[in-house]
């Protein structure tokens, strides 16, 4: 039916997509851990990132890496504005969790449909930027994909470094572990909230921007990655960036294999059923703290 090299090829593709899922899920998980917010508009950050990269690339002729950087910078500020305008008025309110779920749903609908009006519903694709393919042991990988993969890995490492070693990154982790302790340490928790939100938006945008040259861009393109981010944080544990990295690559590969062995139409069904089963057995996720 299929040979070992097709299998390996598919695994490699899975890793490429996985790197973009990780970018998406890490920020999603970060926000959940720090603010207790389930940001249902996170998929729209991905979509906006992809559009910005598309326009920057096609209008200004930037290469994909440069356009991804522009998209990240723009979405960093967008994320901050989002948090200030929509979430900060809700702090300390009764029913905080429900309010944030509802308001991010509202924002998601609004942004998605604004995009539909502004950008149109047509799928937009970019021509290949780096022509040619790399071939090792019958595994063929286009340079485009390779670049996406490498940049993705670099960004993940960057995020890891940020959280692990910088002052602000450490403060983010501190807020997620013990908010009151963070206040008493002199950390301006509200500032950490919006910085983390900006960071998470920037990384989601990077995920979208990097895949823009490989897949198409359209207004609802964020829905899939958002659902994937859900699945990833459930497997990796809510609030755990490390878990998101591991789970993101695993699910990317899992998805590729389902596509290969079953069909692409059923891949989401498989993943969601897996999610439901995992949550039923372990209500706080696979690696979550019980």
């Amino acid at each position, binding site marked *: 039916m299929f040979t070992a090299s097709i299998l390996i090829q598919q695994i490699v593709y899975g890793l490429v997509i996985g790197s973009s899922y990780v970018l998406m899920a890490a920020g999603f998980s970060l926000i959940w851990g720090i603010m207790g917010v389930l940001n249902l508009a996170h998929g729209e950050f991905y979509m906006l990132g992809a559009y910005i990269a598309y326009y920057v690339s096609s209008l200004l002729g930037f290469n994909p890496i440069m356009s991804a950087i522009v998209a990240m910078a723009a979405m960093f500020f967008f994320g901050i504005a989002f948090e200030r305008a929509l979430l900060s008025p809700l702090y300390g309110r009764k029913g905080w969790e429900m309010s944030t779920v509802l*308001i991010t749903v509202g924002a998601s609908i*609004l942004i998605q*449909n604004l995009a539909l*009006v502004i950008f149109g519903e047509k799928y937009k694709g970019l021509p290949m930027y780096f022509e040619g393919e790399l071939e090792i042991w019958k595994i063929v990988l286009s340079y485009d994909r390779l670049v996406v993969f490498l940049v993705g890995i670099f960004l993940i490492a960057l995020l890891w470094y940020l959280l692990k070693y910088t002052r602000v990154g450490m403060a983010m982790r501190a807020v997620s572990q013990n908010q009151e302790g963070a206040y008493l340490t002199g950390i301006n928790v509200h500032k950490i909230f919006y910085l983390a939100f900006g960071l998470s938006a920037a990384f989601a945008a990077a995920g979208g921007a990097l895949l823009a040259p490989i897949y198409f861009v359209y207004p609802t393109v964020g*829905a899939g990655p958002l659902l994937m981010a859900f699945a990833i944080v459930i497997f990796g544990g809510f609030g755990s960036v490390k878990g998101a990295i591991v789970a993101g690559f695993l699910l990317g590969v899992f998805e590729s294999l389902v596509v290969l062995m079953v069909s692409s139409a059923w891949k*989401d069904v498989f993943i969601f059923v897996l999610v439901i089963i995992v949550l039923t057995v372990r209500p706080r996720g696979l690696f979550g703290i019980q």
Partner: protein
Amino acid sequence: MKGSLKSILLLGLFLLLSFFPFLFPDPYLIHLLILSFIFSVLVSNWNILFGYMGIFCFGQQAFFGIGAYSSALLALKLGVPVPLSIVFGGFVASLSSILIGLPTLRLQGAYVALVTLAFAEVMRMTCSNWVGMTRGQLGLTVTALIPGAGRVGYYYVAFLLLLLSTIVLLKVMRSSFGYVTVAIRESQEAADSLGINVIKYKISAFLLSSFMSGLAGALYAHYIRILTPDIMSLHLMITILVMGMLGGIGTLPGPILGTFVLTFLSEYLRDFAQFRFIIYGTLIILAVLFVPGGLVSGLRSVETKLKGKRCQEGSS
């Protein structure tokens, strides 16, 4: 005196709706009312879970769709008489709710939203992919409920369904079940300690809510007569959410009010069809920020203000 005014208004409304097709035989208006009736049932019953019990159900569209598909398929493939198949649709939806209700019992807030949403997406994609049975995106042509009948027939069936649903909800919410739902929403622990079997009540709420939603879905399918998997799309859930929040969740009249207002509003905004969801999104955001209680709470506060004024006038 005020109470009697309210019942007179309600009675008037009931009479108006009862004779509406004869008073205003405008097919388009009747069509809008049919849709309003059906969606009122759906939103009201979602409200049991979301508004009253505080269960973050984001998968109500699945019950609607499951009711629709099972009724349509029963009528189509097995030749079951349509009225019977609609009732079956309700039961199938109800059965499916156990499947999704059980996993949510041990989960909290956002996780519930996630699991129910995932469930609905699985159902939608299954219907979309199982082409042999459902014809996938091509859609099923559904048997008519009343062959040859015009809209007026459907109007009365939908009206009856809404009456039935409202009476059941009134009965249930005025009974001790109503207290239980609120008690569970406010503090599950306290409810448990006062002798309430929380799990039993949550499952019951799921069974009732999904049964009614399934009936509504089945009726919708046999009325519209074209059924695609999009019936279970997230868009429907969003619409439910907006209708509920607009009217006011956690109240009985809220969802019905919200549904009617939004159904008619979106028809009059037809020219702005592409802006419909932009308006929805904005409405949700504004509602969360400024009127968390929806139209009903707005009306109530106006009412108390008027009342307060009257008291003041009386005393002075």
